[in-house]
């Protein structure tokens, strides 16, 4: 599970996606924006069909995510003020409904509640 550190705060969320992917748009794009609002941080969108963004997405997934030659999307990452990057979610090939449930569970998780309450404190 992604850890929390007292001296560091979440600074940005990044979603790696494609417009044609039903796990990504609108589902994960909406949910990551909602998560960003909850944590009070901006969201960056990297589209794998945009050459420049794809380069960034590939580097991010290779360094911190679930890398495969033709990797799964969406993948979501949380960047911290100390520069750390945590991979937090990869889409579920079992079906869009499973990816939706994963987002629901994430929002109700202790981890997200902890992050959100730390922000409010």
């Amino acid at each position, binding site marked *: 599970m992604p850890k929390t550190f007292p001296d560091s705060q979440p600074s940005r969320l990044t979603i790696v996606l494609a417009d044609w992917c039903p796990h990504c748009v609108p589902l994960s794009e909406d949910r990551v924006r909602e998560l960003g609002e909850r944590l009070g941080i901006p969201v960056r969108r990297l589209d794998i069909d945009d050459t420049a963004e794809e380069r960034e997405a590939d580097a991010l997934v290779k360094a911190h995510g*679930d890398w*495969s030659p033709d990797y799964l999307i969406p993948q979501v990452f949380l960047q911290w003020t100390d520069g750390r990057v945590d991979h937090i979610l990869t889409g579920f090939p*079992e079906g869009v409904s499973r990816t939706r449930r994963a987002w629901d*569970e994430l929002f109700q998780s202790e981890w997200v509640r902890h992050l959100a309450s730390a922000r409010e404190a």
Partner: protein
Amino acid sequence: MSPSPAGPEKFVLAPFGSCLYHCSGRTRPHAIANARGPIGWVYTCPGGTVSTVAFLGGTRRPSPARVRRYLQSRTERSEHVRPRDLRAATRHGPELGPAAERWVAGPGGRQPIHLLYWRRYPRKMGRSYSYLYACFRHGAGEVRFYPAPGSRKVRQCPFCLAKT
């Protein structure tokens, strides 16, 4: 459906999914196993096509080469299991529900759960498409894969010649 898994795999088993390329129907998992226990699930749709296959790596990343060898040895010879059709996924716990979150955060600081998915996309064959089908009549936890045109009403497993 297969017996409920007992280990951390119970957190990653989806009781059903959806077929993306054949019929959009509800898929269901069939457990596959080796002598040491469960190794994953084959999700098939109501039309019998294989939607996706999920391999459990537990707290270690499954080896794509090993999974590919496993698949190739259980797939009709004409069918090539492409390395690029194998895709990794990590489940950290919070996205799997409270029980999984507690398990991953449990004593000893357990590691996330790793999976490797195989999806063989439909291939155009003349006017129709070839889909992947699975036969589960090869012993407990075993499977054989073979391609067949989606238009064919009766299919025959090339390994055991059983018709479905």
